[in-house]
Structure formats: C-alpha cells, structure tokens
C-alpha cells in the first residue's frame, strides 16, 4: 500500500507539481517524472557526484535526497545552464579545455562549479580541488577540469 504526497518545486525557473511516493529519490523524480535526464545517476549512495544538482543554490547529491525533501525548493540542473543555443561560460570552458571525455560526470561537476563561482569569483586552488573532489571522473584525470574552471573564471569576469 503506497501513499503519495503532492509536492511542488521550481526547476530551472519552471514550476512543477506532482504526486510522488515518499521513497522516490530526487534524481529519480527529476529524470523519471520530469524527464530531465541531463542529471546523471551513478552510485546511488552519495559517493560519485554524478547526480549533483543545486538545491536553493547549494550543490547536493540528488540520489541521497528524497523528492519530498525538495518540496518548495528552487532547483537547478544542467538543463538550466545554457541560454537557448548559447552555452553557459562553464560549459564553454569545459568544451574548450576538453574538460570532458565520456561526459558522465560532467553535469554534476558543472553544477558544483556553478555554486562555487556564485559564491566567489576568485576561488583559491584549495576551494577548486575541494569542489572537484566531490566528483569521480574516470576519464579526464581531472587536470583538464581544473583548467576549465580557471577558464570559466576568466570568461565570467570578462562577461
């Protein structure tokens, strides 16, 4: 016997309402119910960072957050970065610096970096590595991601 609960939230500026089972994780809600499949899901226990989204401006693991916990929240996913056909400076920087190969880790990483650069326009090297440290990337060896962050800082400064 399953009871559902009505929840509402804003995702990338758009308002959504839905009935969910309390046990639905936020990532399954975003992907399955809202069809926003840009947010990836890997380990499903909070370790890899693939599912990272912004929850009221803060980077969180959406695989270990329940959709009901996000009731009333403002969320941002990778779909909320680009403006139409124009890539977000973070996305453009990843592209130019080859900050991705398979791209599985990329949406989550970019949201964490988005949070970091919203908090400070000149993060220290430690802040950058701490932010990236919350994400597993099996392809790039991370150096290209660090370079992409530095380029994104440049782009945001001169924007």
């Amino acid at each position, binding site marked *: *016997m*399953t*009871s559902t*609960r009505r929840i509402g939230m804003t995702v990338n500026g758009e308002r959504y309402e839905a009935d969910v*089972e*309390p*046990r639905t*994780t936020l990532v*399954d809600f975003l992907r399955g119910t809202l069809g926003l499949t840009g947010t990836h899901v890997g380990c*499903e*226990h*909070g370790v890899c*960072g693939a599912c*990272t989204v912004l*929850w009221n401006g*803060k*980077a*969180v*693991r959406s*695989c*270990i*957050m*329940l959709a*009901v*916990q996000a009731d009333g929240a403002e969320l941002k996913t990778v779909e909320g970065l680009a403006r139409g056909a124009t890539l977000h400076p973070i996305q453009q920087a990843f592209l130019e610096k080859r900050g991705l190969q398979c791209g599985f880790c990329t949406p989550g990483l970019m949201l*964490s970096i988005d949070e970091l650069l919203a908090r400070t326009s000149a993060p220290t090297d430690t802040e950058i590595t*701490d*932010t990236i*440290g*919350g994400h597993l990337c099996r392809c790039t060896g991370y150096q290209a991601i660090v370079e992409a962050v530095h380029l994104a800082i440049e782009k945001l400064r001169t924007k």
Partner: protein
Amino acid sequence: MKPPIFDYATPASVAEAIALLARYEGEAKLLSGGQSLVPLLNMRLARPAVLVDLARIAALDWVRVADGVVAIGAMTRQRTVELAPEVQERHPLLHAGLQLIAHPQNRNQGTIGGSLAHADPAAELPALAVALDASFEAAGPEGTRTVAAADFFLTYLTTALAATEILTSVRFPMLPARTGWAIQEVARRHGDFALAGVVAVVGLALSGAISRARVVLYGVGATPVRAAAAERLLEGHVADAALLASASAQAAADLEEPLTDVHASADYRRDLARVLVGRALAEAMTRAHAA
C-alpha cells in the same frame, strides 16, 4: 538501490516530532540531512515505517557564538557552520574538523545534529564533541535534558538518546588561551571515512609545561576513544620528542581491538593511530606556543 516503502511526516515543531516518535513506538526514524540515512534506505539496510523529517522545524536551525561557546541548533547544515566567519575565527578547531567531513556537496545537506546522533565511530563531529567536552540538549516527552559528550556515545551508531528523544542542540566550548589543537586523519580517498583520526588539544602552563591534554581517536573503536593514559603521561611535563613518542605509543597500545575490514587491518589502524597522535600532538604544541 531504491528505498523500501515508508510513510513520511513533516512536523513543524519539536513537540510534534516527539509525539510522532511516541506514536510509532520505535518504528519511526528521524530524517535530518539524510547523508547517512538515505544511502542506508537505498541499500535497504534501514526499513522504517515512517520517516520524520526535521527539516521543516525552523527553530532547530541556528548558530550562536557567544560566552566562550559555539552553540548550534541540531538541524543546522554542516556547511553553514563551516562557512560562518565567526566560527572560523573563534573556533578554528571546529572549523577544521568540519572541513574533513565528506565533501562540500554532503556538508551542504548534512546537519550537525544528524551526524552526532548517527554516532558513526569514524565520523569527525563525535570525536570533536568528546575532545571539547561538548554538551547536548535533548528534548523528549518528559521535557529537556542535557547530556555531556562523555556520556552520549554508547557504542556503534548508538547514543544515550531514548527512542522518543530528539537532539535539539549542541554546545562546543571554545579553547582557552595558551591552548593548541590539531585534527589529523588518514582516509583511502579524500572525503572518505577515516581509517583512523585523532583530535588533540594541549594547554600550556606559564612554565611551559602541559597543563591539560586531550587526545581523542576516531575510526578505531565502537565510539570516539579517549586516550586517557596518554593524556596523563603528557600532563605536568614539558613536551619534547621523546614524551610525544611515548604518549602516542601509549595511545595506540591502549586501543582495544580496532576494526579489521576491507580497507585496513587492526594492526594497520593501530599503527596509524600511533603515527597520527604523534603528528597531532606536535602540531597542537606548535599552535599552543603561538596562542
């Protein structure tokens, strides 16, 4: 990797939450930041009938830095405390310890009270609480009571909280003058639970001798482990390399069998504890001389 079915309640007050705990008689589980609980649900290692989410209780979300104490509401996010400038400035040990908890993405969601009440013996906050003589406030059907950190952690994932009690706040005393501190740990990967870790606090008398020593290990027992004999070796003496070496050897020797698991053997953890205590004491001494 999907949670089992459960009901979900969002009480607006502590009293309401306590009433829910009483009503479900041990079948309810409190949800705070969920950074430990939701993985356990995903793996179906936890199967509560109902989750009581404390996140809508605004009265549990606050930080106050005053009167020699950093007091924190249980539902305050770890990252909020970590980024608070007055905590950084006036309680650098607490600040440093918070930075070792998992990753920023977990600390954005994870709460101070959640980590303490979960009582994972490899977690930083319980060890910090014991090292700092923190005190906890718990609310239950009979009212509120205060529990000292020394009496709070009973064994693995088990605290002195009754089934109908809720941890509402914690008070971390600040360190006095002429006192140095260090927190050191080794983990397989940055952000993982520590194989072993230690919090060290040393206070110096005007003579330069150690007037007060606190050494608390984590990841090597069923609770945070206070190295009482090592502390006694240190107190009353002027620290030199030989004293720090014997204190760290004592701390390691006194450990009851540390855990053996896929990450490390008991022997490895014991030796790691010895090395870390030595490093932490040296670092704390340097800070004490500068403080």
